[in-house]
């Protein structure tokens, strides 16, 4: 019925504009049922560094592509050291969903993440080192291969090395060959390491 549709459309439109454009109002709009309202809230949160945890949390459950893009754009604009520190806290946290979302966001912030990466890769917690290596998977930064080579050369934890060698199989160059061979010698009884290192060497050999 046209009248009902009109009323619904008006409600959605007024919802989009009725929340105050301050931090609290925008955070409320981030969970609005209407995707357009959520998208505008994500964009308008760009000046508020306090909104990072809420944006990361929303990203984990958001299914609308345009809203996800708006969240990434805002986080990228906010992408300074404070943001990255908030994301690193998520990596140390218990909540799997938030950790995964933090990884996804960090992949989009190469310049902001880079200064923190050497520290993350030697974090005392192996799980955090694995998550840091996972960030490198699609981080567009010139040091990615260098960091991965350092991991497979120095990290004593097999799963951290396994995650790094997975990525080296995709992005590795001849610079990684010596350390991939050394990794096989370091873990001669780990079938997965032998398999993954051989695969990486094979792929590098072909390029």
């Amino acid at each position, binding site marked *: 019925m046209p009248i009902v549709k009109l009323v619904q459309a008006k409600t959605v439109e007024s919802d989009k504009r009725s929340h105050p454009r301050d931090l609290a109002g925008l955070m409320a709009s981030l969970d609005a049922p209407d995707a357009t309202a959520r998208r505008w809230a994500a964009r308008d949160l760009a000046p508020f560094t306090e909104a990072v945890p809420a944006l990361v949390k929303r990203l984990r459950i958001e299914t609308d592509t345009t809203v996800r893009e708006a969240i990434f754009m805002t986080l990228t604009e906010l992408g300074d050291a404070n943001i990255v520190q908030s994301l690193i806290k998520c990596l140390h946290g218990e909540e799997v969903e938030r*950790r995964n979302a933090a990884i996804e966001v960090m992949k989009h912030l190469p310049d902001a993440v880079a200064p923190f990466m050497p520290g993350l890769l030697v974090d005392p917690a192996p799980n955090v080192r694995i998550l840091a290596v996972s960030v490198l998977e699609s981080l567009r930064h010139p040091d990615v291969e260098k960091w991965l080579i350092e991991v497979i050369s120095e990290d004593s934890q097999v799963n951290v090395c396994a995650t790094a060698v997975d990525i080296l199989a995709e992005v590795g160059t001849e610079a990684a060959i010596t350390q991939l061979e050394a990794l096989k010698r370091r873990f001669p009884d780990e079938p*997965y390491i032998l398999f993954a290192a051989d695969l990486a060497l094979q792929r590098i050999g072909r390029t």
Partner: protein
Amino acid sequence: MSPTLKRILIVDDAATVRMYLRSILEGAGYAVEEAINGIEALEKALTLPFDLYLVDVIMPKQDGYGFLRELRRQDIPQAPAVMITTEAESRDQARAFESGANSYMVKPIKPEELLAHCRLLLNAPGDSP
């Protein structure tokens, strides 16, 4: 493919891991399909019958826990699932079982361990795939 061949879905975003698991499972006579995240896995689970799921925890878009929770809500014949993770702490195991996993393996995966899990969940002891 033989109609009695057991079909296993590997759900992992790492291509190398999928290739590794596939090589072990196909070598042992299982039929293997792959998905790169929970969303793709659910689509496959809704269109193809599987006898076992091998599910990584950390994946983009939808992680292993989310996939298993969704899978268990579906009105389809349910198959056992093994959660594969790097985390060996008891809270993570509890989370895996709460999400709908039947078993739990900690990386790095050794071929004999993997096949033992498959035999346990799929067959009577000593049965072939």
